[in-house]
């Protein structure tokens, strides 16, 4: 029971510039009856600033980062590099969530320390499955 409660309150940093994808991710989580709290960063630079603030103020780190690759200002792979090369943030499970199907993006993601690489689906059922999987398995990452 306790474990379930903990899962439901997952604190996610969503790094995503496309409002449609933000909405889809929120919907998927809501419709799966998972209650995660979202912090949204709509570009790579903003994501790194949010993380820096958290680290410097000693607040609780997000439980999970969902990171898009194709981002304005600082691209997702660079954000990933920053997160994983910084001791204070490298422990945060980071899932690259992108529409890119380029092998090179997948390879770079894993090389730079991503815990998982997931391609964005094109229907809500898949979205839900993915969110459910992520939330339920977050402790393993």
């Amino acid at each position: 029971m306790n474990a379930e409660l903990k899962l439901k309150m997952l604190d996610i940093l969503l790094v995503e510039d496309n409002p449609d994808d933000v909405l889809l991710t929120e919907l998927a989580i809501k419709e799966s009856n998972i209650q995660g709290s979202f912090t949204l960063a709509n570009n790579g630079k903003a994501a790194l600033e949010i993380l820096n603030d958290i680290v410097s103020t000693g607040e609780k780190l997000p439980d999970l980062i969902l990171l898009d690759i194709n981002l304005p200002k600082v691209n997702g792979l660079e954000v990933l590099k920053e997160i994983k090369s910084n001791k204070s943030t490298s422990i945060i499970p980071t899932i690259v969530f992108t529409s890119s199907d380029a092998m090179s993006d997948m390879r770079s993601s894993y090389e730079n320390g991503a815990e998982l690489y997931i391609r964005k689906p094109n229907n809500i059922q898949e979205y839900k499955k993915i969110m459910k999987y992520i939330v339920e398995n977050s402790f393993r990452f």
Partner: protein
Amino acid sequence: MNCELKLKTPSLEKTLKKLKAIEDISYACSNLFTSDMPTVSEKVMKPFCELAGCDVGVFMLLKKPQEQIYIISTYGLSQTFIETYNTKLKYTIHSEDVSEYWPSLRSVLRKQIVLIKDTTTRKVEYSKLFRNSVGPETIRSIASVPIVVNNEAIGAITLYYRKPQDFDDEELSFIKATTNIITGTIERNHLLETAKKSERELAQANEVLKHVNQELDSFVYIASHDLREPLRTIESFVSIVQDRMSKNLDKENNDYFMRIVNATRRMRKLIQDLTHLARATKDTKEKEREVVDLNLLLNEIQFELTAFIQNKNAEIIMPDKLPNVIGNKEKITSVFKNLIANGIKFNKSEKPRIIITLDNDANFDTDKIGFCIEDNGIGIEQEYQGKIFELFQRLHSQDEYEGTGAGLAIVKKILEKYNCEICVESDKGKGSKFYFTLPKEIN
């Protein structure tokens, strides 16, 4: 007898000298492959004028585009004369103080040799500079020969004599012969220049074309990637609406809705194919010249197509040992996979059969190796065989054979990148044979 010989000797000597001069001039001209006219004229004017026996000679060309009267070389005049004439006066044939009674202009305008045996009996005018430098009252005879290239008079050589001349046949033919040699040289150089210019222009056009092609390739690449994003959003939200509304929709609306779903699916397929096409044209740099083991590659393709092959009860027959080729593994895979899958897909036989053979024709380039992929499928009518390699060309309706018609275009594009070719031999109902080449592994 003796007396007669003696009399003839001086004139023979003169003729010999003239022949020698013609030889010199022609030699000077034949060694000039550039349109370096000052050099041509310099080497030509002196022997020409000396042998013609004139006192002053002027070699003039009309310089485009203004048709400036431009002196490139003189005989019996100073260098300052040329400089003043060309850089200060800058006469054009349209200048007010230029007269058609200038002997050189007269021959140019008429495209004819102008011979003035006695200047006192004919109207002759000169430029002010010429009058000041030469003193025209001393000039008694003039010969001006136009230089005609491509039926256009582009200049003239004008000879001025202080002693009156008769311009007998021998004299005239000497002048004509020499001018012909000079004209020939100019003509040849002109042709060479033109050829060089076209060559340059062609190279430039090629460069532009290459650039445009590259831009087009990257456009397709970018477009196909950027188109996918909004499509994915459409599909996702359609799936939400479908989820929520499908039970409430009546038959008609449900039909409309399904059309949206199908259209987006088709669009996804089209964009996917565009992406594949873009990849076929995109250089992956270091990975363009890998050694590709075809035995391995074909095993992988068969594995990937397992379900499809089993569903259609198809079989693939190929040699036990296939050679290595050079290229990008993904692209070569795409070539074989498309051709094999097509052979099975467009096939109504109970047992679709694909036969892959090596096709070593002596006509191929030595660095290429030939293949043939044969099927027992529905075949392609003669009249459509040229069309099948074009992008999004389809010969069948969607209900008959699903697809976008990009496969063979992708195959062809990949092969073109490797300077390889593909062709088809087929007839309706008699299967198809696709012949193509790939870069050979050179040991």
